[in-house]
């Protein structure tokens, strides 16, 4: 019987292959993020100070919503074509398989947001040092969001049009990420000490990484009753 690591790698590879076959699903959240965060400067006007002030918050809200937008489909197609059943009934531990799927989700949704964040930051006239901080907060934040989102997606997988419920479940848990993420970038922009925020986001990500896979597995079993 293949080991856990093999199962984890195979799951991640399969999900990445599936995303490649359907690039639209991957691009959707990214386009949404870029649209929302670049429309704000156009609507508000070219005042440098205002832009610098709202930039961190707007970027973070756009990133959070983009991640939420993509979560619904995380387990949906597996549920519909019966492959979720096969995963639930396999001899491999379900948390490992769930973590593999979550990693793939982050690689195709979260990571691209982090990579394009500098483009967005430039439209808000944020200086280079702040852009680095923004990328760091988004990197840690999107990891946590993928992991938390997997729990919500697993709980709502059997529910028709569960998107609203999914947001309702995930948003409260992700509020600390939004508050600390946006505030950390704002502090960095104001030349103040911001390291505490980074530490908090890192701690949150580690906590989510430790606990979320088990919660996701339990949720998947419940929603497949």
């Amino acid at each position, binding site marked *: *019987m293949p080991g856990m690591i093999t199962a984890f790698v195979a799951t991640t590879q399969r999900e990445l292959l599936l995303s490649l076959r359907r690039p639209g699903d991957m691009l959707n959240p990214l386009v949404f993020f870029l649209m929302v965060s670049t429309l704000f400067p156009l609507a508000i006007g070219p005042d440098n100070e205002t832009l610098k002030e709202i930039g961190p918050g707007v970027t973070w809200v756009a990133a959070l919503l983009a991640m939420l937008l993509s979560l619904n489909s995380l387990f949906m197609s597996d549920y519909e074509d019966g*492959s979720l059943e096969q995963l639930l009934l396999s*001899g491999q531990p379900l948390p490992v398989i769930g973590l593999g799927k979550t990693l793939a989700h982050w690689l195709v949704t979260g990571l691209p947001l982090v990579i394009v964040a500098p483009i967005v930051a430039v439209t808000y006239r944020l200086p280079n040092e702040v852009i680095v901080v923004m990328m760091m907060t988004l990197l840690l934040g999107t990891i946590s969001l993928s992991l938390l989102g997997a729990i919500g997606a697993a709980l709502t997988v059997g529910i028709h049009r569960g998107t609203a419920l999914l947001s309702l479940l995930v948003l409260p848990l992700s509020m600390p990420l939004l508050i600390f993420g946006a505030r950390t970038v704002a502090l960095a922009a104001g030349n103040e000490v911001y390291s505490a925020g980074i530490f908090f986001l890192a701690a949150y990500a580690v906590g989510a990484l430790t606990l979320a896979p088990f919660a996701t597995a339990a949720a998947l079993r419940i929603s497949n009753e």
Partner: protein
Amino acid sequence: MNHKLEAADLTLFRGERCLFAGIGFALAHGAVLALKGANGSGKTSLLRALAGLIDLEEGTIKWDGRPVLEDPQQFRSQFVWYGHRTGFKQDLTPLENLKFDAMLRPQRDASPRDVLCSVGLEKQMELPMRQLSAGQQRRAALARMLIADVPLWLMDEPFTNLDVAGREFVEATLGTHLTRGGMAIIATHQALSLSVPVDELVIQ
């Protein structure tokens, strides 16, 4: 190794409705059990409960004398599930699907290509699943059973969408599986024509 599956006093409620109560059976190596009953009588639910997808109200299921709830994951690596849906991704080819499946449970020493050829998909194994007909997709799902090295097959309506040749093929592979010492539980309305005697369990 000779395995043994025993179930006693199985009771399942869906909401307020009792689907079945006090059902029991024993299945030894080389034996097959057919679950019979009208539509909606709970054949699929019983099969899902045996697999551990649904929690039973009451009853114990033992694998080799040990309750399966003590180590559900170990039990899950002893069977393979053949459900209404194929469980294969429509965007991937049968070959890619089968290779992924190989990670999920113990495998026989056979290459996925050979197994797909043996179910009659030599020309379709590199096409996306969505381009295959319903019957061909069922055949691909059958390849999963053939490549898995597990004693127990759980099959839910295995003859849906299959032509006469496909049906005979399922019965032939089941026969091979049983003579190897495997066992199977099959929920079906149709009569099985197998070389071994078929035990029946009728759900009222």
